[in-house]
């Protein structure tokens, strides 16, 4: 079995877990026992710690994953990845969800958006310089949205002006997740204001330690502070940090955005399954009041069915992505709308089951995946960000149903 494993000997990072990759069943077992043991360790390491442990815990978790070669599991081997098959990626995501392992939210951009962009558009030097750092825990953020350019991203106004071997940047970015922790930023700027808005955009890698970069955390509706505004004043970016050609950044950005439609969403769907299953098991264990109200139990099984349907849809999306099927364009819209609204409904449902108690503010330190109020209020990030559900409906109507533009 080992001998047959494709490329098993090629990578120095191959671990006990990765060695099982050729056999899905064995791989699942290996992942399961590793992740369960490691997450248990996590609870020991971080339990009882005060202060903002989010960053430390994320870095610890990345390091642990790295030890078994799972830092960048879906990346090609050439860039230090484990090059897992889709099937194994699914197994990995399922097991992470099952064990309640930390969501790698700090690394969302570095793990997904950065490779989706650089592998296709980056120079060899850029790839060699930046990609290896990701598995070592280098944090990236995204500098796309602006106060006046959210859904209408192409109308962005942050200026980049060429000055010898570098560009001078001035402007303001917003909704930049974890930018307070980031070492680098993938940045969209306007280099030509006199052409059609999509045509004058240039894409950069920006060092967050550059002079003139100021990060101001924004507080979210649920009290969290995951994103920030980034103010850019005469920031100098060397020409070699440009990704793609000048004024062709819009095309590059499409690769970046496509990173949001794969295994990332899949894992969050899997986690929702366990949230719901555990929620129901808990209710039964505690003989919760709401179980005696058939209106509520009917609603629960309705949501439970929606959750299962959503997982099924996510599986379809992964298959379509893998096959480069054009239908993935349609599916990803349904996934976006259905999964984000489902999360909101589940949060609201759970809140109601807790009655007045659901309104008590708890100072939970975890990623709060299972606190109803956090699920509910946090769900707006999903329905608004990444192309609001309103934009998604426009696209569905115009691009899929071919209804004419007004």
């Amino acid at each position: 079995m080992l001998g047959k494993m494709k490329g098993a000997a090629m990578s120095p990072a191959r671990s006990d877990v990765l060695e099982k990759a050729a056999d899905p069943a064995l791989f699942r077992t290996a992942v399961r026992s590793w992740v369960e043991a490691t997450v248990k360790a996590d609870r020991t390491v971080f339990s009882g710690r005060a202060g903002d442990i989010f960053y430390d815990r994320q870095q610890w978790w990345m390091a642990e994953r790295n030890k078994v070669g799972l830092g960048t599991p879906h990346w090609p081997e050439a860039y230090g990845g484990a090059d897992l098959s889709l099937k194994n990626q699914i197994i990995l995501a399922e097991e992470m969800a099952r064990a309640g392992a930390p969501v790698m939210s700090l690394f969302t951009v570095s793990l997904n958006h950065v490779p989706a962009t650089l592998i296709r558009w980056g120079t060899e030097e850029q790839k060699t310089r930046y990609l290896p750092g990701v598995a070592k825990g280098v944090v990236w953020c995204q500098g796309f949205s602006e106060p006046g350019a959210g859904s209408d991203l192409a109308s962005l106004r942050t200026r980049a002006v060429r000055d010898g071997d570098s560009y001078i940047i001035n402007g303001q970015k917003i909704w930049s997740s974890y930018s307070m922790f980031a070492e680098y930023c993938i940045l969209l700027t306007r280099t030509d204001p006199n052409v059609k808005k999509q045509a004058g955009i240039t894409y950069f890698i920006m060092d967050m330690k550059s002079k003139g970069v100021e990060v101001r955390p924004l507080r979210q509706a649920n009290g969290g502070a995951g994103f920030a505004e980034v103010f850019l004043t005469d920031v100098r970016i060397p020409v070699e940090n440009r990704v793609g050609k000048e004024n062709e950044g819009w095309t590059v950005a499409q690769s970046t955005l496509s990173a949001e439609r794969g295994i990332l969403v899949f894992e969050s769907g899997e986690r929702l399954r366990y949230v719901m299953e555990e929620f129901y098991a808990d209710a039964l264990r505690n003989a919760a009041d709401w179980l005696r109200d058939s209106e509520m139990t009917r609603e629960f099984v309705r949501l439970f069915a929606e959750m299962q349907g959503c997982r099924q849809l996510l599986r379809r999306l992964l298959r379509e992505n893998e096959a480069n099927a054009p239908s993935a364009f349609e599916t990803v819209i349904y996934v976006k709308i259905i999964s984000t609204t489902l999360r909101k409904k589940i949060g609201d449902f759970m809140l109601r089951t807790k009655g007045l108690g659901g309104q008590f503010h708890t100072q939970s330190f975890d990623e709060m995946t299972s606190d109803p109020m956090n699920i509910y209020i946090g769900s707006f990030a999903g329905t608004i960000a990444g192309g609001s559900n309103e934009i998604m409906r426009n696209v569905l109507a115009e691009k899929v149903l071919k209804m004419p533009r007004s």
Partner: protein
Amino acid sequence: MSGIACSFGHYARAGTRAVPTSQRSELFGNQNVTPCNEDLVTFSENICEVLTTVCDRRSVHAYFDGGNDLDLTLWDRATELGWLGIGVSEEFGGLGLGPRGLDVLFRSLGQNVSPGPFCSTLVGAQWLSECTALDVAKQFVSAVVAGTLSLGIPVAPGGVSMKMQGGRITGESETLLIHPRTRLSILPVNNEGEAGFALVPVGAGDADLARIELWDRTNSIGRVKCRNVAPAAVIPDPRGRAVDLLRCYLALAVASDSVGGARAIADQTVAYLKLREQFGRPLASLQALKHRAADLYVAIVKAEQVLECAIDAADGDVASAGMWAALAKAAASEAYLSVADDCMQLHGGVGFTWEFDCHIYLKRALLNRQLAGDNRALRDLAAGQLTEATLAGITTAEFAA
């Protein structure tokens, strides 16, 4: 026409197995292998093609107004093309495509709001093929596949049973999904204390069928009044597995019909919005209507995905299959109704006329909501099964590989 539908056609027309087993399993896989999606898609396209011709808008409207025998025409055509054996296994002369094959057929029939005894008969046959002794099953199921027998079944399996004493049944049945010409019905009986089902000859002097007129004239229901009737066969069901399976298959059929119908009327509505102009521009260019249209498809996709889970579960024969079927039927029939309702509204005035299709879909959606059991009852059932499984530490959310 692709080879697949031709195979079906040829196979059925010849009355014998024209396509060798090996070739067919290559096309659709054996029961252990999920049939390849592409084959099913082609199959579905072929059924649609036939239905678009036979069961076109004009014919359906004429049937609705009592002006033709579309139900019978369609039945004959289905017999010819081998559709009636799509679900049951090869030993009954079927194609063995199981729940997945039935889904394809019921979805297409739903798309075309087709009349005829398909649902009751094919659900009944599938159930018979799995719940009765092989000889009994062979006798009846093969007749179904050959197009010579249609079946009646309870509208909501799990309802009141008829008393059976000394091998004879007397009394009035619960409401059955049954075509006026159907001559055999599956009836729940209490056979001297033992729960089960009986196959009862209908329409003879001692078992009258009293039809009930429905708002949805593409379906037929009725009640059978038995006076000392001897059943053709009895299927004991002491542990309630048979009733659960009957409900499961019926729920799946109604769910498939519902998503098919919902998608068809939504497509038709979007097409109408593109044609119809108001204030000098097509209605389809109005953003509020675009969002409404998008919401229709979101609702449909949600229901389709739950149904997909349920078909997976039934196909994989997992323990929670009944639960998922119940949830799928509830989700799909509710989506159908909300879609059909909004489509009538989106059509404006003409949608409210008898001549347009909206009301036919709407009435079928309304009936579907009640078939296989009220959705509240189905969800209560599902909740009970979820509770049982959860207490036993068994997950119901694993996909059937």
